[in-house]
């Protein structure tokens, strides 16, 4: 052996050391591999630019807001209560119409685009555990979806305050708690939906079926547990939490028997179930 590299990489090295403790420690140290996989994941999402399409779509709604929400008097546009307008935009348009679509779109480069499956195959012939690989992807998608949404929502927050009746950006400091509440709501929504879409995308067609079952579970079965006499499909656990986070701004018609603690437990357990399901799926998965 002329140098250390040759020694490490020669088959003699495997003969002598594989299966021994020191080699296992070197190879089984998954922390560096997790960090590396996270970095690659962020770069993949950032450079594939699917998030830009989502941002562009979200910003395209600004003119709609101007037409629908503003108080247009004598050619000037003014929001009398920018905090309320912002909450209306979030729960009337941004969240129900765009958020879930955004999760799906942003996760595509890691879950279901034309090369994601083959690149997963390539990464899994590297010495990274399947669970670690899945965890890295889950972290990346959650952080990215959250950051992208926070930026979009903050743009809207600035926008409504820029056209506040009391003057540009008047009262923005006082209303930061409203934005904070929305940010907490977004975090919970992100933890629920982005990991789910990543998993569904990776599973493929069967994943779509699974997502329908999940949706039915979320909207019908769980809610029905609390429907004593409601004749309609109620809004879900996230809206119950929104009622608690922003009590002065929203009042969603959730089932009377649905308790806040149950909603909190639900949004906590759901992401944990998704992480476990994803790890299990990838552990068992065969690339055919």
């Amino acid at each position: 052996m002329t140098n250390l590299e040759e020694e490490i990489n020669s088959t003699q090295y495997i003969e002598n050391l594989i299966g021994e403790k020191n080699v296992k420690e070197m190879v089984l140290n998954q922390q560096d591999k997790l960090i590396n996989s996270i970095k690659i994941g962020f770069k993949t999402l950032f450079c594939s630019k699917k998030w830009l399409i989502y941002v562009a779509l979200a910003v395209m709604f600004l003119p709609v807001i101007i037409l629908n929400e503003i108080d247009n008097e004598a050619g000037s546009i003014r929001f009398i209560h920018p905090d309320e307008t912002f909450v209306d935009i979030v729960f009337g348009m941004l969240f129900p119409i765009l958020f879930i679509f955004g999760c799906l779109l942003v996760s595509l480069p890691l879950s279901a685009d034309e090369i994601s499956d083959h690149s997963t195959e390539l990464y899994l012939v590297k010495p990274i555990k399947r669970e670690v690989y899945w965890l890295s992807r889950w972290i990346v998608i959650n952080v990215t979806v959250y950051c992208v949404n926070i930026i979009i929502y903050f743009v809207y927050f600035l926008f409504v305050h820029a056209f506040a009746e009391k003057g540009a950006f008047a009262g923005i400091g006082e209303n930061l708690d409203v934005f904070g509440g929305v940010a907490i709501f977004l975090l919970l929504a992100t933890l629920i939906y982005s990991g789910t879409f990543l998993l569904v995308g990776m599973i493929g067609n069967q994943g779509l079926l699974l997502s329908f079952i999940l949706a039915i579970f979320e909207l019908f079965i769980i809610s029905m547990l609390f429907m004593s006499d409601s004749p309609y499909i109620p809004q879900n656990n996230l809206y119950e939490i929104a009622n608690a986070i922003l009590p002065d701004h929203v009042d969603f018609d959730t089932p009377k028997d649905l308790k806040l603690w149950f909603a909190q437990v639900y949004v906590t357990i759901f992401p944990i179930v998704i992480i476990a399901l994803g790890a299990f799926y990838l552990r068992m998965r065969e690339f055919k």
Partner: protein
Amino acid sequence: MSKNSNIFDVLAKLDHVTKSFGEVVAVSEASFSVEKGKITGFLGPNGAGKTTSIKMILGLTRPEKGRVTLFGKDPFYNSSLKHFLGYIPEIECFPKWMKARDYFFWLGRFQLTREEAFRRADEVLKEIGLEDVANKRIQKFSKGMKQRMKIGQALIHKPALIIGDEPFNGLDPVVRRNMIDLFKDYTRKYNSTFFISSHILFEMEKFSEKVILMYKGRTIAQGSPIHIREMIEDQPHSIQITVKDSKKFSTLLINNADEEVVSQIKFQKDIRSNENQLVVLTNEPREFYRLVTDLACDHEIPIIEIKATDEGLENLYKSLTIG
């Protein structure tokens, strides 16, 4: 010699392995081994079960029956074994946005330190002849350059075993020869072992120390290239060449070869790429491949792809199974 070293003389092994997908049996009772320090050729027509066998060795799919071992252990869900493994995939899986050097660096970081990964990225780029385009995005590369990138990423950590699924596809004869020399270098310098699947028997014969032939999921023959050559000597070979100036190249072939080397030439167009192709029937495949390489170099004619036709391979392997 210790007990362990005997185990690791064989780096990968399939022992009576069967794998099917639904009703299609991809691999049936296949048995072969990949020995340390050798270049092993893995040959067979499309659908022979080569890729499925490779995926089982890589731990990406599990056998239904039989046993697959990598470094003496079950490779499925065993990430520690992958530290000593390099894989050249058949299908392109490059992130479109990545630059060549970054690609090597990020993949190298799974096994190497930051400094080492940087150093090896530059070294490998030089070895595969892409150092001039190190900072260009991979999506702008030609098919041959992308193929070299796939080879490079498998070599970055100087693995003990490199498994290549059709690694020479899309390479012109000159680059092909350079890559073969590179493999030989790695075997010599780092005692690396190569397990290479290919369509081209007579190319593998030139640098493999062992050849395994697979047909319809079964290993129909294995042994030294001389042994395999004797078995298929009398069979005519049908070879497809994709080349821009097909008329000029066919004229050169006819003028420089006798009837045994070039028995028949047909012109056709690739349906997908609309590129010109020649389909040549030869009774002297070794001589024919040598001639194609010489003519391409001497007359500077870029060859886009060269491979045995599926029909030709099918006939060849059929002849082996019949007798």
